[in-house]
C-alpha cells in the first residue's frame, strides 16, 4: 500500500512525500470511517485527524507491510471516540419510508450502487443499535472483508470477542430485517 522508502522519507520530515501517503491512505480511511459513523462530514474529519496522527507517530511503524493495519487501528479508535460523542448527542429514529427504500433496493437484486446519502442512511438504520465494538467488527469483517486475524490486530480484541461481537451484530441486524422487511 505504502512503500518503505516513502515512509522513510516522511520520517525525515519530507512533507511532499507525506502528501503521497495521504493520497494513498485517504480512500481506505474515508471508507471505514464513513461506514462506521454513517456521516460523510464526520468521516472527512476522521481522515484528517488520522493522517495528522500518522505524521506524528511515523516512528512507530515497524514495517511497510503493517502500515495498513496500523492506519486502520488509528482510524477505528478515532471512530470509537466519535461514536461515544454521537451516542450522547443523538438517538436516531427511522420510519416506514426509509425501510421502503431498502426494500426497493433488495427487490432489484441488491446490486444497486448506492449514493453516499442512501449508503449512510442504510448503515445508520442497520447499525444504530449496535455497540461501537459490534459496529467496528461488522464493518471490518462484513463490509471491508478483513479476516479475523486482521480484526484482532486492529481492534485489540481477542479472537473469541471478535467472533462474539460479529455474532451479536448479525443477530441484531437480522432481527431488524425480519421486523421491517
Amino acid at each position, binding site marked *: 500500500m505504502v512503500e518503505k522508502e516513502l515512509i522513510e522519507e516522511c520520517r525525515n520530515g519530507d512533507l511532499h512525500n507525506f502528501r503521497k501517503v495521504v493520497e494513498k491512505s485517504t480512500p481506505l480511511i474515508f471508507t471505514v470511517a464513513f461506514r462506521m459513523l454513517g456521516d460523510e462530514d464526520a468521516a472527512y474529519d476522521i481522515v*484528517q485527524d488520522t493522517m495528522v496522527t500518522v505524521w506524528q507517530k511515523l516512528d512507530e511503524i515497524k514495517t511497510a507491510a503493517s502500515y495498513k493495519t496500523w492506519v486502520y487501528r488509528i482510524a477505528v479508535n478515532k471512530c470509537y471516540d466519535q461514536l461515544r460523542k454521537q451516542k450522547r448527542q443523538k438517538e436516531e429514529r427511522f420510519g416506514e419510508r426509509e425501510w421502503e427504500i431498502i426494500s426497493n433496493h433488495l427487490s432489484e437484486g*441488491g446490486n444497486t450502487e448506492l*449514493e453516499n446519502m442512501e449508503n*449512510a442512511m442504510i448503515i445508520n438504520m442497520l447499525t444504530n443499535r449496535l455497540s461501537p465494538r459490534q459496529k467496528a467488527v461488522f464493518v471490518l469483517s*462484513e463490509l471491508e472483508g478483513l479476516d479475523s486475524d486482521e480484526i484482532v490486530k486492529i481492534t485489540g480484541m481477542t479472537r473469541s470477542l471478535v467472533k462474539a461481537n460479529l455474532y451479536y451484530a448479525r443477530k441484531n441486524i437480522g432481527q431488524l430485517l425480519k421486523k421491517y422487511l
Partner: protein
Amino acid sequence: MTKENDNYDRLVRMLRNSRPDLFRPENIENEVIKRIQSRNQSSGMFSGFIDALFGWVYIGWVRRSLIGVSVLLVAIFVYQQAFIIRQVNNISKQVVIIGSESSSVSSSALDKRLALYRLTVRLSPDREIRISESRLEELLDSYDDLQVKYKDLLRIIEEDPELKSYIENRLKEDKEYKPDI
C-alpha cells in the same frame, strides 16, 4: 436459506459494493498538510522564543568568557579552602590545655596567650603543659612588664659591638656549662 439470511446477504453485498464516493480528495490532502505545517510552526515559535531568551549562550566569545570566569571562580574557591585548612592545621598544632578553668577572654588577653603558646611550643614542642588560668595571667603580666622594661635592650646591644661580643661570649659559656639536674 431463510428469507432473513437472504435479505442480510443481499444487503451486505449491496453495502460492500457501494464504496462511499470521496469528493475532492486533494482538499483533504491540502487540509492535512496545512494542519501539520501549522503544528510545526507553533512548535517552531516556541523554540524561537527559547532561542531569544537563551540563544546568547551559543555566541562563541560569550561561551569562552563564561568558561574562563567559571574556571577562575573555581580556582579562587580551591585556593581559599586550601588557605583556611592550612591555618586551621597551624592553630590546632598550637593548642595548650589549661585544665577546667577555661573561660572566655578579651582580645588583648588572647594576644598574650597566643604569644605564650608560641613560646611554649618553641621551647618544648612535644610536651603537654598544664597550668591554671590565674598562674597563666600572672605569667603573662610579668612577660608584658619585661617587654616594656627591656624593649630597648636589643637595640642597645646591637648598637654597641663591644657589649654584643661580651654577651655572645657569656651565652656561649652558658651553653657549654650544663649542670646535672
